[in-house]
């Protein structure tokens, strides 16, 4: 008894919702059959192995950090605990981290704009064959608007580093 994860949109939606509900004992509406299928198979969700792997990695990382703090030597002195700046006196830093160039902030803001564009691109790309010419034209219009913004940022020097 295996559910095939076919590519049809309504079916896909049902499965995606059902995954969220998989840990609940009762589920109502059209998703019930799929949820029942998960239960019937008596197996774990496809997401569970990820947490197993994450658990192994976390266990390794935390264990090794913990062990190193126990078995390593501890001979501290004042100079050793200072920040390293090639031997000179460390630069005094104001509380809260101090200031750094505005360029990094600008890069982060631009990244968010383009990252959201990509978020829109992914579902479009996956369902592209079903959308047909309509999908192509729609996305061309969308990308064009983003490209206008991109050209504007470029022209205003937002992409220059120095």
């Amino acid at each position, binding site marked *: 008894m295996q559910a095939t994860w076919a*590519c049809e949109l309504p079916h896909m939606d049902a499965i995606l919702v059902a995954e969220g509900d998989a840990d609940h004992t009762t589920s109502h509406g059209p998703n019930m059959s799929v949820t029942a299928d998960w239960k019937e198979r008596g*197996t774990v969700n*496809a997401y569970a192995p990820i947490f197993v*792997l994450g658990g192994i*990695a976390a266990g390794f990382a935390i264990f*090794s*950090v913990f062990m190193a703090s126990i078995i390593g030597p*501890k001979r501290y002195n004042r100079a050793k605990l200072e920040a390293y700046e090639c031997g000179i006196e460390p630069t005094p830093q104001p509380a809260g981290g101090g200031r750094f160039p505005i360029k990094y902030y600008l890069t982060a803001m631009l990244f968010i704009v383009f990252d959201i564009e990509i978020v829109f691109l992914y579902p479009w790309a996956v369902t592209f*064959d079903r959308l047909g010419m309509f*999908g192509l034209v729609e996305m061309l219009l969308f990308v064009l608007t983003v490209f206008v913004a991109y050209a504007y940022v470029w022209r205003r020097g937002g992409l220059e580093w120095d």
Partner: protein
Amino acid sequence: MSASVLGGTQLAATTENLSFFGNDVWWLILLKAVFCFAFAMLTVLFSIVWERKVVAWMQLRIGPNRHGPWGMLQSLADGVKLMLKEDITVKRADKVVFILAPIVAAIPAFMAFAVVPFGPADNEVSIFGQRTALQLTDLPIGLLYILATASVGIYGIVLAGWSSGSTYPLLGGLRASAQMISYEIAMGLSFAAVFLYSGSMSTSTIVGAQHNRWYVILLPVSFLVYICTMIGETNRAPFDMPESEGDLVGGFNTEYSSIKFALFMLAEYVNMVTVSAVATTIFLGGWRAPWPISTFWEGANHGWWPMLWFVVKVQLLLFFFIWLRGTLPRVRYDQLMKLGWKVLIPISMVWLMLVAAVRAMRNEGYDFSKIVLYIAGAVLVLLLISLLADLLRDREDKKKPGEGGLLAPPDRFDPMAGGYPVPPLPGQQVQRVPRRPSRAEPQLVGASGQDAPEQEKQEDGDA
């Protein structure tokens, strides 16, 4: 999937079928998870030695040869040594974040391996009597998950830089984060072209869809963009500004010692293996046997053999990383950002739209030669427009030479920078360095300022 949909997609011959995943018994999941972890770990241990060996050969040295046969246990010895070293938390550090950062960097590096396919997804092999797929699990959003884990890894680096309470780590952490998010955009765009062809984000389906042609042949530009971005994402040479030992000592990990430092190195190398595995999966046919072998040997893509092809491909990509490090000098940070924002993003965007247009027309049933004609026409028009714009801009430049407000370049370039910080020796003259003539800044002249004006147009005098 209905027949009408299948009619238009000759290339995406495999439909998304993830029913093989998520129904293993618990001990098999545990076994596979341990295998994924061990695979990443052993590949890292090997590739560190391999890197040192290969770079040594490229520089006519011998490289590590003391620990184990052929120096193969060198990285294990390094790990044990680092474990036994003093674990320092500097006074100014934010203690909790400082300890947490290497852990945050290391965990997601390993987690990406959960959806990497080592073999076919149709229960081909048998492990202790259980038929299963050579893949820990697969999701309908497999590659999105990989992108997500890669992004979480950035947190480790930023937090390490910020929490150290020191100048170099802060700068290194900022550089790393800015670089990684810049290259992530182009990386995401190159993924989108793959999704267009595969019609799915699950890794096993993407490999399945490459049974005729690998996507590296169908999408060569996406592959090249991905190769660039994967080096940028992993902070490797020539894009290793975040840890450039020349100006930032060690970058974000300057203040780290003992096993915490080792965890950062581990995370970097695991990330290298991960991006290589992703490149193999989405562009190089994943576990599929390479071309000449697959033609005469039917069994090459069945049983345990796929794992061999997968490992070979990943190792070749890792060698490519090492090769780059041994060959290329480090780029400047502004060059790096320029490449990311001004070259890779527009190229991959235009390429994606081109691929989409070709595919849409093919789905509509246009003749292929007609499609080529249309696309070539569009490209030609674009080229003509850019040529025209270039010509017009040239003419404008000639109209008003030397004119410009605050942003215009200075009339004369003084290589001694007015005697600061190093004053010139008595009578010192700076020699000209022959350079390609720059169109943008024809006004720059040498230090002495006594050159003839004809020469000024031909070379920049920044000695």
